[in-house]
């Protein structure tokens, strides 16, 4: 009797499974979109997919823990910011091509000396709590952002701004100490999103839990780190919000995120690694969205190493690397080899050249510079060997360690020996922010993402020379590159508000830097997100934003 009992159970179990599978009528992931809020049933059902979804779920890789636009906003980037942008508006905003578009400001003008910016604000707009939007709302908030105690983490972007004044109820004047070419980028930044002054004054500390803006969506419920639910704001002044409800969840593991999309439980996901992207492209129910990103990758070459002080050596290293092959093999074609120190869409970026792989040329350049191969196959000259320590984080960048090993191989072919030193992501930056003589690396794999889209700030952060060798690098010039001409151009570009002249100066600066090769130029990343085919229009911006609400 016991035996048959077990057999019966097993049979029941098997019939149950096959029976349910049979009802689905298929094995592909052709499930209906998971219209959901958490309290409803989430059974992936068999109804045919609705052609217009009213409620969508967006699964991000990092949890949204707060939605404050003041204080420590970098905590939010990019996932919290994606939601904050649906709730708030700024004076201006980025289009999908990173052009500056009017948002709460209808138009703006610059004074002749480039120091004053006058914004004419949209009228008749109200915050979600009924407060009127006007110049005072802007001025109050912006002035608080000029305070370094309040503006933690984005203060360096706001520092050049001197004061913000109300001209009349719908006109704001912002004055910068000197002409500031990245000013509009700062106005598009998430630290310039405008909160309701009433809400902010009522409870500044907890504003991040109850944000109130002017945006197309308002917060219905927020469980920090778990889930955020936004509902449409019927009174939004811009394009009518497409959805009734957007739910933001987080799934840290990429394969779990993709499984959730394939099973229909979520409708949009972000941060898809390249190896999964290829497989998702062939899925008929999903749309892959690939956009060029702003993050540039390269091997930073330490100018404290005598061999690397020779420009011929640095250029030879660039010629030795087959960037196209790396893009195809490691990243399935989802990265773009660099043609400038800046990625496309960064302001001022201009393609200035390419070090197309030419191993023969690399070798002959090194020979001419006097570096000949010794018994071990490593090139040396007067006792100085092309033997370098390459520092790389492990887990910070997509395939960081494998990329380094590939580069190690390619460089070995021309007689350059690389020893790889891996460090954990969390300590990586600490290794770089040391005085010139304390550097323990010859090369560093580094990726820099200008989240504000400004090429001038990007160049200044990485290529402006540091004032003192005995102190830490000011920003990210940890390879101690110095070129006074470049410094002058960068300083000029910082203060050039005329777009054409700005472009010219930036082009010159990029050309010089490209030729100087302070980096072994590699590639810029792509931003890969995916959505169910029934989700209309998800905007993906090069500043790593996936915005389902646009």
């Amino acid at each position, binding site marked *: 009797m*016991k035996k048959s009992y077990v057999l019966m159970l097993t049979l029941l179990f098997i019939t149950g499974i096959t029976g349910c599978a049979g009802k689905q009528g298929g094995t592909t992931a052709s499930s209906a979109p998971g219209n959901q809020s958490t309290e409803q049933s989430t059974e992936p059902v068999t109804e045919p997919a609705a052609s217009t979804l009213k409620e969508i779920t967006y699964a991000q890789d*990092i949890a949204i823990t707060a939605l404050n636009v003041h204080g*420590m906003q*970098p905590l939010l980037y990019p996932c919290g910011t994606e939601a904050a942008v649906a709730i708030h508006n700024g004076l201006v905003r980025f289009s999908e091509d990173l052009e500056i578009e009017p948002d709460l400001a209808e138009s703006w003008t610059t004074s002749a000396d480039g120091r004053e910016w006058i914004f004419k604000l949209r009228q008749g707009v109200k915050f979600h709590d009924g407060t009127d939007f006007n110049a005072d709302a802007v001025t109050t908030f912006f002035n608080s952002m000029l305070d370094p105690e309040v503006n*933690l983490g984005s203060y360096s972007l706001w520092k050049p701004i001197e004061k913000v004044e109300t001209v009349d109820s719908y006109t704001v004047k912002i004055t910068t100490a000197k002409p500031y070419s990245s000013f509009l980028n700062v106005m598009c930044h998430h630290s310039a999103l405008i909160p309701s002054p009433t809400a902010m004054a009522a409870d500044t500390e907890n504003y991040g839990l109850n944000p109130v803006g002017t945006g197309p969506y308002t917060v219905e419920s927020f469980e920090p780190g778990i889930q955020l639910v936004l509902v449409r704001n019927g009174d939004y002044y811009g394009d009518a919000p497409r959805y009734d409800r957007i739910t933001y969840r987080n799934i840290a593991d990429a394969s779990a995120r993709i499984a959730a999309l394939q099973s229909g439980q979520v409708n949009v996901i972000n941060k898809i690694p390249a190896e999964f992207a290829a497989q998702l492209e062939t899925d008929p129910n999903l749309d892959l969205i690939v956009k060029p990103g702003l993050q540039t990758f390269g091997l930073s070459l330490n100018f404290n190493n005598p061999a690397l002080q020779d420009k011929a050596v640095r250029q030879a290293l660039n010629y030795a690397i087959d960037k196209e092959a790396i893009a195809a093999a490691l990243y399935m074609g989802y990265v773009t080899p660099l043609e400038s120190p800046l990625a496309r869409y960064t302001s001022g970026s201009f393609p200035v050249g390419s070090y197309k792989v030419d191993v023969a040329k690399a070798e002959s350049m090194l020979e001419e510079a006097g570096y000949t191969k010794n018994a071990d196959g490593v090139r040396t000259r007067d006792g100085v060997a092309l033997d370098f320590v390459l520092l790389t984080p492990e887990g910070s960048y997509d395939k960081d360690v494998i990329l380094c090993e590939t580069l190690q191989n390619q460089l070995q072919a021309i007689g350059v020996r690389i020893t790889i030193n891996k460090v954990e992501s969390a300590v990586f930056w600490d290794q770089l922010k040391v005085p010139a003589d304390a550097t323990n690396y010859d090369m560093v794999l580094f990726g820099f993402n200008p989240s504000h889209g400004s090429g001038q700030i990007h160049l200044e952060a990485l290529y402006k020379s540091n004032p003192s060798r005995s102190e830490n690098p000011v920003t990210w010039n940890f390879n101690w590159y110095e070129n006074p001409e470049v410094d002058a151009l960068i300083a000029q570009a910082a203060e050039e508000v005329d777009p054409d002249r700005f472009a010219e100066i930036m082009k010159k600066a990029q050309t010089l830097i490209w030729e100087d090769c302070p980096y072994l130029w590699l590639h810029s990343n792509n931003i890969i997100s995916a959505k169910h085919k029934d989700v209309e229009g998800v905007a993906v911006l090069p500043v790593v934003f996936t915005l389902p609400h646009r």
Partner: protein
Amino acid sequence: MANYVLRRMIYLIFQVFLVLSLMFIIFRLLPGDPARLVLGPLASEAEYARYRMQMGLNDPISVQYLRYLQELMTGNLGSSTSYSQSVAAVILPRIWPTVRLMLCSLGLAVFIGVPAGVFTGIYPDSKVAKGIMGLWVALLAVPNFWLGLLLVQLFAVRLNLLPSIFAGTLLSMVLPTLAIASRLIALIARMTRSAVMEVANEDYVHFAQAKGLYQWAVVVRHILRPALPPIITMIGMQAGYLLGGSVVIENLFSYPGMGQLLLAAVSARDYALMQGITLFFVMTFLLINLLVDLLYSQVDPRIRLE
């Protein structure tokens, strides 16, 4: 017994205090600057320095430790840097989900493991028993993260029977519970089997059968009872696994419990939050062991609590 419980609770407080102190020092010895991680790469050196000063990270460890103890005495667990809320506020809503997941996994493991163990213990030579025992070895060998991924691929993506991430419904609890419980099922079943085999041939069992008692009554009343203590011990020993397994599985299924919180807190070097979570884990572990000991004494009258 009340005395015993009181004494154990006092020990518990000491143990928690000890572990917390140890963790405090270890976390701060971990390399990685919270300032850089919180403020991001665009901030300047001055901003990092200011942040470090605000958070009291420049003080020597002993000073930070004393400050922490002082706050702990008043029930203040500190404030989380990655959440801009107090640690207590962040942790509180996550306690019940994790406990619930642990209880469900335990329940499932006992519900499947004990009957399976009893069956294979009473009929150790049957083919079915041998098959089941092979299954247990497989369940023990498979890492629960991988099992979780497999379950999601099979049941959520391919067959579309169950949700792939937690969504507040009972159905969405199934896969996470299964992923954690699988190893426990195997362990409990094996333990039950050996306990049952030991007892099944005792004289008093034969006597009960000779008396004419129904088979199942024999099992429950005379065989299961002596088999319980080892099972309960096993559960106590697996408390650590349950808590650890929750970390991995919660992340896989986006389950809003303490495990998911812990990984995020460590990546962000959010010291206060990490301490708070450690406090929870340590207390839970010790409480489970206390409960197991108490249960033990109830189940087996031969055991006296000292």
